[in-house]
Protein backbone atom coordinates (compact mmCIF):
# COMPACT_ATOMS: atom_id res chain seq x y z
CA UNK A 1 0.00 0.00 0.00
CA UNK A 2 1.41 3.38 -1.00
CA UNK A 3 2.27 5.59 1.94
CA UNK A 4 0.73 9.05 1.92
CA UNK A 5 2.57 11.73 3.85
CA UNK A 6 -0.23 14.28 3.86
CA UNK A 7 -3.95 13.75 3.25
CA UNK A 8 -5.58 17.08 2.38
CA UNK A 9 -9.33 17.31 3.05
CA UNK A 10 -10.59 20.54 1.48
CA UNK A 11 -13.50 21.31 -0.84
CA UNK A 12 -11.70 24.21 -2.52
CA UNK A 13 -10.33 22.13 -5.39
CA UNK A 14 -7.77 24.61 -6.74
CA UNK A 15 -6.37 25.36 -3.31
CA UNK A 16 -6.01 21.67 -2.44
CA UNK A 17 -4.46 20.82 -5.83
CA UNK A 18 -1.90 23.63 -5.58
CA UNK A 19 -0.96 22.70 -2.01
CA UNK A 20 -0.60 19.06 -3.11
CA UNK A 21 1.74 20.09 -5.96
CA UNK A 22 3.92 22.08 -3.57
CA UNK A 23 4.12 19.09 -1.23
CA UNK A 24 5.03 16.78 -4.15
CA UNK A 25 7.76 19.23 -5.24
CA UNK A 26 9.31 18.62 -1.82
CA UNK A 27 9.27 14.90 -2.60
CA UNK A 28 6.49 13.93 -0.25
CA UNK A 29 3.34 12.06 -1.25
CA UNK A 30 -0.04 13.67 -0.89
CA UNK A 31 -3.65 12.79 -1.50
CA UNK A 32 -6.67 15.08 -1.80
CA UNK A 33 -10.30 14.47 -0.78
CA UNK A 34 -12.96 17.13 -1.33
CA UNK A 35 -15.60 16.04 1.17
CA UNK A 36 -15.86 14.41 4.57
CA UNK A 37 -17.53 11.18 3.51
CA UNK A 38 -14.96 10.34 0.80
CA UNK A 39 -12.11 11.18 3.19
CA UNK A 40 -13.49 8.92 5.93
CA UNK A 41 -13.95 6.03 3.48
CA UNK A 42 -10.37 6.46 2.26
CA UNK A 43 -8.96 6.57 5.82
CA UNK A 44 -10.89 3.43 6.75
CA UNK A 45 -9.43 1.56 3.76
CA UNK A 46 -5.88 2.84 4.29
CA UNK A 47 -5.43 2.56 8.06
CA UNK A 48 -1.87 3.38 9.07
CA UNK A 49 -0.77 4.57 5.65
CA UNK A 50 -0.98 8.29 6.26
CA UNK A 51 1.39 10.42 8.35
CA UNK A 52 -0.61 13.64 8.66
CA UNK A 53 -4.14 14.79 7.87
CA UNK A 54 -4.86 18.43 6.99
CA UNK A 55 -8.54 19.10 7.55
CA UNK A 56 -10.62 22.11 6.50
CA UNK A 57 -13.57 23.00 8.73
CA UNK A 58 -16.05 24.04 6.02
CA UNK A 59 -16.86 20.96 3.97
CA UNK A 60 -19.92 20.54 1.77
CA UNK A 61 -21.33 17.41 3.37
CA UNK A 62 -20.17 17.54 7.00
CA UNK A 63 -18.75 20.07 9.39
CA UNK A 64 -15.01 19.61 10.00
CA UNK A 65 -15.40 18.84 13.72
CA UNK A 66 -17.68 15.90 12.87
CA UNK A 67 -15.10 14.60 10.36
CA UNK A 68 -12.39 15.00 13.00
CA UNK A 69 -14.44 13.05 15.55
CA UNK A 70 -15.04 10.25 13.03
CA UNK A 71 -11.36 10.13 11.98
CA UNK A 72 -10.35 9.70 15.61
CA UNK A 73 -12.85 6.84 15.99
CA UNK A 74 -11.35 5.06 12.98
CA UNK A 75 -7.71 5.92 13.63
CA UNK A 76 -7.19 7.43 17.13
CA UNK A 77 -3.45 8.09 16.80
CA UNK A 78 -3.25 9.77 13.38
CA UNK A 79 -2.14 13.42 13.70
CA UNK A 80 -4.81 15.81 12.42
CA UNK A 81 -4.11 19.50 11.82
CA UNK A 82 -6.99 21.88 11.14
CA UNK A 83 -6.57 24.47 8.39
CA UNK A 84 -9.29 27.05 8.14
CA UNK A 85 -10.06 30.44 6.69
CA UNK A 86 -12.25 31.69 9.51
CA UNK A 87 -12.17 29.34 12.47
CA UNK A 88 -13.33 30.89 15.74
CA UNK A 89 -11.83 30.47 19.21
CA UNK A 90 -14.79 28.16 19.96
CA UNK A 91 -13.91 26.01 16.91
CA UNK A 92 -10.29 25.89 18.02
CA UNK A 93 -11.18 24.67 21.52
CA UNK A 94 -13.61 22.09 20.12
CA UNK A 95 -10.98 20.77 17.69
CA UNK A 96 -8.40 20.52 20.47
CA UNK A 97 -10.92 18.65 22.61
CA UNK A 98 -11.55 16.24 19.75
CA UNK A 99 -7.83 15.56 19.33
CA UNK A 100 -6.50 17.97 16.68
CA UNK A 101 -2.89 18.79 17.52
CA UNK A 102 -2.66 21.99 15.48
CA UNK A 103 -5.03 24.76 14.36
CA UNK A 104 -3.77 26.74 11.37
CA UNK A 105 -5.20 29.63 9.39
CA UNK A 106 -5.06 29.83 5.60
CA UNK A 107 -2.87 30.64 3.75
CA UNK A 108 -0.64 27.83 4.94
CA UNK A 109 3.07 28.41 5.37
CA UNK A 110 4.59 25.50 3.46
CA UNK A 111 7.89 25.59 5.37
CA UNK A 112 6.10 25.33 8.72
CA UNK A 113 4.01 22.48 7.32
CA UNK A 114 7.14 20.61 6.21
CA UNK A 115 8.72 21.10 9.66
CA UNK A 116 5.58 19.63 11.26
CA UNK A 117 5.61 16.69 8.83
CA UNK A 118 9.30 15.95 9.38
CA UNK A 119 8.78 16.02 13.14
CA UNK A 120 5.84 13.60 12.84
CA UNK A 121 7.84 11.23 10.62
CA UNK A 122 10.69 11.20 13.15
CA UNK A 123 8.27 10.09 15.88
CA UNK A 124 5.90 7.51 14.33
CA UNK A 125 2.44 7.50 15.87
CA UNK A 126 1.61 3.82 15.54
Amino acid at each position, binding site marked *: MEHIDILIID*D*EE*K*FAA*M*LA*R*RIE*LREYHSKVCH*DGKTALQWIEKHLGSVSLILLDL*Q*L*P*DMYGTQVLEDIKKIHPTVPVAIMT*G*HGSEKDKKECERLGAFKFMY*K*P*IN*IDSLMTILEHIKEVPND
Partner: protein
Amino acid sequence: MNNATNFISIEGLKFFGKVNASISHEIKNILAIISETAGFLNDLTDLAKQGEDLKLSLLENCTESIAEDIQRGFDTIKQMNQFAHSVDVPIKEIKIFETVELTVKLSNFLSFSSKVEIENGDKEDKPVLTCPFLMESLIYQILLFVYESTGPDGHVLIQFDSQKKDGTSLIISTPTNFILDGFPTPDIQRAAKFLGFELNINSSNQKLDIWVPYVSKEIVALEKALQINSKS
Protein backbone atom coordinates in the same frame (compact mmCIF):
# COMPACT_ATOMS: atom_id res chain seq x y z
CA MET B 1 -41.94 50.46 15.52
CA ASN B 2 -44.63 48.19 14.10
CA ASN B 3 -44.44 44.42 13.67
CA ALA B 4 -43.23 44.51 10.08
CA THR B 5 -40.43 47.02 10.56
CA ASN B 6 -39.36 45.29 13.77
CA PHE B 7 -39.22 41.96 11.94
CA ILE B 8 -37.22 43.46 9.05
CA SER B 9 -34.73 45.01 11.50
CA ILE B 10 -34.11 41.86 13.52
CA GLU B 11 -34.29 39.25 10.75
CA GLY B 12 -32.54 41.62 8.37
CA LEU B 13 -29.51 41.95 10.63
CA LYS B 14 -29.28 38.15 10.94
CA PHE B 15 -29.53 37.78 7.17
CA PHE B 16 -27.01 40.56 6.54
CA GLY B 17 -24.55 38.92 8.96
CA LYS B 18 -24.97 35.49 7.40
CA VAL B 19 -24.39 36.78 3.86
CA ASN B 20 -21.39 38.87 4.94
CA ALA B 21 -19.83 35.87 6.67
CA SER B 22 -20.22 33.70 3.55
CA ILE B 23 -18.79 36.44 1.29
CA SER B 24 -15.76 36.94 3.54
CA HIS B 25 -15.24 33.17 3.51
CA GLU B 26 -15.35 33.18 -0.29
CA ILE B 27 -12.83 36.05 -0.51
CA LYS B 28 -10.52 34.30 1.94
CA ASN B 29 -10.69 31.14 -0.20
CA ILE B 30 -9.81 33.11 -3.32
CA LEU B 31 -6.85 34.75 -1.58
CA ALA B 32 -5.70 31.37 -0.26
CA ILE B 33 -5.63 29.96 -3.82
CA ILE B 34 -3.73 32.99 -5.14
CA SER B 35 -1.32 32.71 -2.21
CA GLU B 36 -0.65 28.99 -2.91
CA THR B 37 -0.19 29.70 -6.63
CA ALA B 38 2.27 32.51 -5.87
CA GLY B 39 4.07 30.12 -3.51
CA PHE B 40 4.25 27.51 -6.29
CA LEU B 41 5.75 30.13 -8.65
CA ASN B 42 8.30 30.87 -5.95
CA ASP B 43 9.11 27.15 -5.69
CA LEU B 44 9.64 26.98 -9.47
CA THR B 45 11.93 30.04 -9.33
CA ASP B 46 14.01 28.44 -6.58
CA LEU B 47 14.31 25.24 -8.64
CA ALA B 48 15.36 27.26 -11.71
CA LYS B 49 18.04 28.99 -9.62
CA GLN B 50 19.35 25.53 -8.75
CA GLY B 51 19.68 24.76 -12.47
CA GLU B 52 16.39 22.93 -13.10
CA ASP B 53 14.61 23.63 -16.40
CA LEU B 54 11.72 26.03 -16.00
CA LYS B 55 8.65 24.67 -17.78
CA LEU B 56 6.85 27.51 -19.53
CA SER B 57 3.56 25.57 -19.54
CA LEU B 58 3.61 25.51 -15.72
CA LEU B 59 4.16 29.27 -15.61
CA GLU B 60 1.29 29.76 -18.06
CA ASN B 61 -1.00 27.55 -15.94
CA CYS B 62 -0.17 29.56 -12.85
CA THR B 63 -0.76 32.97 -14.42
CA GLU B 64 -4.04 31.74 -15.96
CA SER B 65 -5.12 30.40 -12.57
CA ILE B 66 -4.30 33.72 -10.86
CA ALA B 67 -6.22 35.65 -13.54
CA GLU B 68 -9.26 33.34 -13.10
CA ASP B 69 -9.25 33.80 -9.34
CA ILE B 70 -8.89 37.56 -9.61
CA GLN B 71 -11.98 37.50 -11.86
CA ARG B 72 -13.78 35.31 -9.29
CA GLY B 73 -12.87 37.93 -6.67
CA PHE B 74 -14.21 40.77 -8.85
CA ASP B 75 -17.47 38.85 -9.41
CA THR B 76 -17.82 38.25 -5.66
CA ILE B 77 -17.25 41.93 -4.87
CA LYS B 78 -19.77 42.92 -7.56
CA GLN B 79 -22.41 40.68 -5.93
CA MET B 80 -21.49 42.03 -2.49
CA ASN B 81 -21.97 45.56 -3.80
CA GLN B 82 -25.33 44.74 -5.43
CA PHE B 83 -26.47 43.14 -2.17
CA ALA B 84 -25.31 46.13 -0.08
CA HIS B 85 -27.37 48.45 -2.30
CA SER B 86 -30.54 46.41 -1.74
CA VAL B 87 -31.07 48.34 1.51
CA ASP B 88 -30.75 51.79 -0.11
CA VAL B 89 -34.51 52.21 -0.59
CA PRO B 90 -36.81 50.11 1.65
CA ILE B 91 -39.57 49.70 -0.94
CA LYS B 92 -38.92 49.97 -4.65
CA GLU B 93 -39.57 48.38 -8.00
CA ILE B 94 -37.12 45.56 -8.72
CA LYS B 95 -36.67 43.06 -11.54
CA ILE B 96 -37.72 39.62 -10.33
CA PHE B 97 -35.24 37.53 -12.37
CA GLU B 98 -32.33 39.79 -11.43
CA THR B 99 -33.21 39.60 -7.72
CA VAL B 100 -33.58 35.81 -7.74
CA GLU B 101 -30.32 35.46 -9.66
CA LEU B 102 -28.42 37.60 -7.13
CA THR B 103 -29.91 35.68 -4.19
CA VAL B 104 -28.94 32.34 -5.76
CA LYS B 105 -25.37 33.60 -6.24
CA LEU B 106 -25.22 34.74 -2.60
CA SER B 107 -26.53 31.36 -1.40
CA ASN B 108 -23.96 29.54 -3.55
CA PHE B 109 -21.16 30.91 -1.38
CA LEU B 110 -22.27 28.40 1.26
CA SER B 111 -20.26 25.18 1.16
CA PHE B 112 -23.38 22.96 1.40
CA SER B 113 -25.33 24.67 -1.40
CA SER B 114 -26.70 22.65 -4.31
CA LYS B 115 -26.27 23.50 -7.98
CA VAL B 116 -29.03 25.84 -9.07
CA GLU B 117 -30.30 26.36 -12.59
CA ILE B 118 -32.51 29.36 -13.25
CA GLU B 119 -34.76 29.08 -16.27
CA ASN B 120 -36.42 32.25 -17.42
CA GLY B 121 -38.94 31.09 -19.98
CA ASP B 122 -40.62 34.51 -20.13
CA LYS B 123 -37.49 36.38 -21.24
CA GLU B 124 -39.01 39.69 -20.07
CA ASP B 125 -37.86 40.47 -16.53
CA LYS B 126 -41.02 41.66 -14.74
CA PRO B 127 -40.93 44.60 -12.29
CA VAL B 128 -42.21 43.97 -8.76
CA LEU B 129 -42.88 46.64 -6.14
CA THR B 130 -41.38 45.12 -3.00
CA CYS B 131 -38.94 45.39 -0.13
CA PRO B 132 -35.84 44.08 -1.97
CA PHE B 133 -33.93 43.21 1.18
CA LEU B 134 -36.81 41.24 2.71
CA MET B 135 -37.48 39.49 -0.60
CA GLU B 136 -33.81 38.44 -0.88
CA SER B 137 -33.91 37.27 2.73
CA LEU B 138 -37.04 35.19 2.08
CA ILE B 139 -35.71 33.52 -1.09
CA TYR B 140 -32.35 32.92 0.63
CA GLN B 141 -34.03 31.20 3.58
CA ILE B 142 -36.15 29.06 1.25
CA LEU B 143 -33.07 28.04 -0.76
CA LEU B 144 -31.23 27.08 2.44
CA PHE B 145 -34.19 24.93 3.42
CA VAL B 146 -34.13 23.23 0.00
CA TYR B 147 -30.30 22.75 0.09
CA GLU B 148 -30.60 20.95 3.42
CA SER B 149 -32.82 18.45 1.68
CA THR B 150 -31.01 18.16 -1.68
CA GLY B 151 -27.42 18.33 -0.38
CA PRO B 152 -24.26 19.62 -2.11
CA ASP B 153 -24.55 17.11 -4.98
CA GLY B 154 -28.20 17.98 -5.62
CA HIS B 155 -29.68 20.06 -8.42
CA VAL B 156 -32.34 22.70 -7.97
CA LEU B 157 -34.37 24.21 -10.79
CA ILE B 158 -36.03 27.64 -10.52
CA GLN B 159 -38.63 28.56 -13.12
CA PHE B 160 -40.86 31.57 -13.64
CA ASP B 161 -44.47 31.46 -14.72
CA SER B 162 -45.88 34.89 -15.62
CA GLN B 163 -49.07 33.79 -17.33
CA LYS B 164 -51.26 35.66 -14.87
CA LYS B 165 -51.61 39.43 -15.18
CA ASP B 166 -51.04 40.39 -11.56
CA GLY B 167 -47.98 38.42 -10.62
CA THR B 168 -45.37 35.73 -11.28
CA SER B 169 -45.05 32.25 -9.88
CA LEU B 170 -41.59 31.27 -8.80
CA ILE B 171 -41.38 27.49 -9.01
CA ILE B 172 -38.62 25.61 -7.19
CA SER B 173 -38.15 21.92 -7.96
CA THR B 174 -35.52 19.20 -8.01
CA PRO B 175 -35.18 16.06 -10.17
CA THR B 176 -35.34 13.99 -6.98
CA ASN B 177 -37.87 14.31 -4.19
CA PHE B 178 -37.11 16.85 -1.54
CA ILE B 179 -38.15 16.63 2.05
CA LEU B 180 -40.34 19.54 3.01
CA ASP B 181 -41.00 18.56 6.62
CA GLY B 182 -41.28 21.68 8.74
CA PHE B 183 -41.75 23.97 5.74
CA PRO B 184 -42.45 26.85 5.93
CA THR B 185 -40.62 27.81 9.12
CA PRO B 186 -42.23 30.62 11.19
CA ASP B 187 -39.63 33.15 9.89
CA ILE B 188 -40.27 32.18 6.26
CA GLN B 189 -44.02 32.39 6.86
CA ARG B 190 -43.76 35.86 8.45
CA ALA B 191 -41.50 37.26 5.74
CA ALA B 192 -43.86 35.97 3.03
CA LYS B 193 -46.83 37.49 4.88
CA PHE B 194 -45.22 40.95 5.11
CA LEU B 195 -44.34 40.85 1.42
CA GLY B 196 -47.77 39.58 0.39
CA PHE B 197 -46.23 36.45 -1.20
CA GLU B 198 -48.03 33.11 -1.08
CA LEU B 199 -46.21 29.84 -0.47
CA ASN B 200 -47.72 26.68 -1.91
CA ILE B 201 -46.30 23.22 -1.57
CA ASN B 202 -47.32 20.83 -4.26
CA SER B 203 -46.60 17.54 -2.52
CA SER B 204 -47.70 15.38 -5.46
CA ASN B 205 -45.02 16.66 -7.83
CA GLN B 206 -42.63 17.95 -5.15
CA LYS B 207 -42.62 21.58 -6.16
CA LEU B 208 -42.53 24.77 -4.19
CA ASP B 209 -44.58 27.53 -5.70
CA ILE B 210 -44.00 31.10 -4.53
CA TRP B 211 -46.63 33.54 -5.76
CA VAL B 212 -45.06 37.00 -6.20
CA PRO B 213 -47.66 39.73 -6.90
CA TYR B 214 -46.42 42.73 -8.87
CA VAL B 215 -47.98 45.00 -6.24
CA SER B 216 -49.47 43.57 -3.04
CA LYS B 217 -51.69 45.36 -0.52
CA GLU B 218 -49.25 44.20 2.17
CA ILE B 219 -46.32 45.97 0.50
CA VAL B 220 -48.36 49.17 0.09
CA ALA B 221 -49.20 49.00 3.82
CA LEU B 222 -45.54 48.36 4.66
CA GLU B 223 -44.46 51.34 2.56
CA LYS B 224 -46.90 53.54 4.49
CA ALA B 225 -45.68 52.19 7.85
CA LEU B 226 -42.07 52.87 6.89
CA GLN B 227 -42.96 56.44 5.82
CA ILE B 228 -44.67 57.05 9.16
CA ASN B 229 -41.68 55.66 11.05
CA SER B 230 -39.23 57.83 9.13
CA LYS B 231 -41.30 60.97 9.91
CA SER B 232 -41.75 60.23 13.63
